[in-house]
């Protein structure tokens, strides 16, 4: 099973990240003139490795306009159990390229509108995202409201089959509210809804059909042609002391496929050396219920089911993350360097071929103010 790198949610994430904090890192004082270069690495014990260099630049223009451009490349090398046992007898490499440009315009004091286009391409998937947003600072700048709408236009292909092309569409809306609670903290509330339509299955994935106690044959995966999801997150950010900080958040998500998930994250950080160094630790826990039509194996006695998937990401699963981060301001033109490393463990409670997986995620970032 080849790995389709680009999932529409990945681009949605990129949109949300860039929209929430123009210029990237330090939204507290909005100076957008900076260049950010980064490198992310993912490696797991299923022999999947992804190297992702990225770059982003933002600069102000006249009349309250800020423009930003960004690009990311995902270079994947995979010899996972899914790849080797089905479609390919050997490991494969694949590259995905993503690029985007955005505009932020301050239409009046403390009110800004944004527009963004992000596209990505890999051998068997192309995606386009168009988004528009509005940000306002209200109540003497104690309250910030972000409203974003995104439309997605994707084409799902299949490697080695140039005649295979399926459309996938997405509409997404998100409302984020940030409130200063007192001199030492914030509360964030985020609600997001997404509606996906079209071809929502994976063309490389097959489901086993069991008869008389043994797998008799396999069928292509089939998913409903619509999926609607709603997620809500509550976050508390607080300064415990002048140099110690805590972030805690909880997210609940549900969709029409029956996938319900709960996510909790805790981050602690401490500033040192007159705020030139920021050290932090993070822990995250996640669990989800299975999609209503997910089965590890299907009984074929009553015929092929209309909707069928054995995708472990749609089954009962959980994950745990533990990581460390260090960020330092270098006394050379205000350069900021950040490094992180995290261990992630996945549990797939219904999957027949793989019950768990260990992964390491590392990142390196450089922010150069202009």
């Amino acid at each position, binding site marked *: 099973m080849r790995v389709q790198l680009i999932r529409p949610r990945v681009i949605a994430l990129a949109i949300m990240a860039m929209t929430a904090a123009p210029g990237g890192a330090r939204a507290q004082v909005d100076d957008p003139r900076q260049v950010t270069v980064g490198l992310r690495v993912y490696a797991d014990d299923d022999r999947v490795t992804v190297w992702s260099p990225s770059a982003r630049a933002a600069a102000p223009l006249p009349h309250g306009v800020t423009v930003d451009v960004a690009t990311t490349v995902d270079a994947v090398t995979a010899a996972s159990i899914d790849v080797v046992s089905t479609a390919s007898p050997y490991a494969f490499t694949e590259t995905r390229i993503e690029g985007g440009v955005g505009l932020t315009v301050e239409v009046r004091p403390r009110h800004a509108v944004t527009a963004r286009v992000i596209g990505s391409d890999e051998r068997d998937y192309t995606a386009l995202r168009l988004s528009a947003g509005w940000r306002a600072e209200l109540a003497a700048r104690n309250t910030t409201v972000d409203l974003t709408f995104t439309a997605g236009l994707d084409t799902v292909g299949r490697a080695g089959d140039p005649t295979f092309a399926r459309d996938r569409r997405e509409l997404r809306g998100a409302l984020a509210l940030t409130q200063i609670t007192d001199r030492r903290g914030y509360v964030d509330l985020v609600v997001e809804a997404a509606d996906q339509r079209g071809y929502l299955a994976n063309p490389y994935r097959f489901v086993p059909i069991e008869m008389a106690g043994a797998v008799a044959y396999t069928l292509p995966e089939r998913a409903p042609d619509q999926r609607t999801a709603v997620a809500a997150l509550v976050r508390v950010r607080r300064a415990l002391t002048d140099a110690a900080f805590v*972030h805690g958040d909880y997210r609940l998500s549900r969709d029409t496929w029956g996938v319900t998930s709960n996510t909790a994250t805790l981050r602690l950080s401490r500033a040192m050396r007159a705020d030139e160094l920021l050290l932090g630790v993070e822990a995250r826990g996640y669990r989800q219920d299975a999609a209503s039509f997910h089965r590890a194996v299907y009984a074929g006695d009553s015929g092929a089911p209309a909707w069928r998937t054995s995708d472990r990401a749609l089954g009962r699963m959980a994950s745990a993350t533990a990581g460390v981060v260090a960020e330092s301001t270098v006394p050379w033109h205000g350069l900021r360097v950040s490094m992180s490393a995290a261990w992630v463990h996945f549990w797939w409670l219904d999957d027949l071929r793989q019950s768990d997986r260990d992964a390491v995620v590392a990142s390196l970032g450089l922010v150069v103010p202009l």
Partner: protein
Amino acid sequence: MKRLGLALVLVGGALVACARVRPHERQILAHPGLAQPPWPEQHAAHQHVYQIREGSEGAAGAGGGGCGCN
């Protein structure tokens, strides 16, 4: 979902009741340790992994208004 909606209404109402903090009182709020996300590159790297490996999504990359200090 009804409980979720009620919870959102209660949280929203509580937020409105928060005290107003004047600009000259926001030194701590402007600290990078309270920025959201606190470490953008690390946050992006992790969210990329979760989006691929997990079955649900949404509300993970947004939020994080600033302190309005400038």
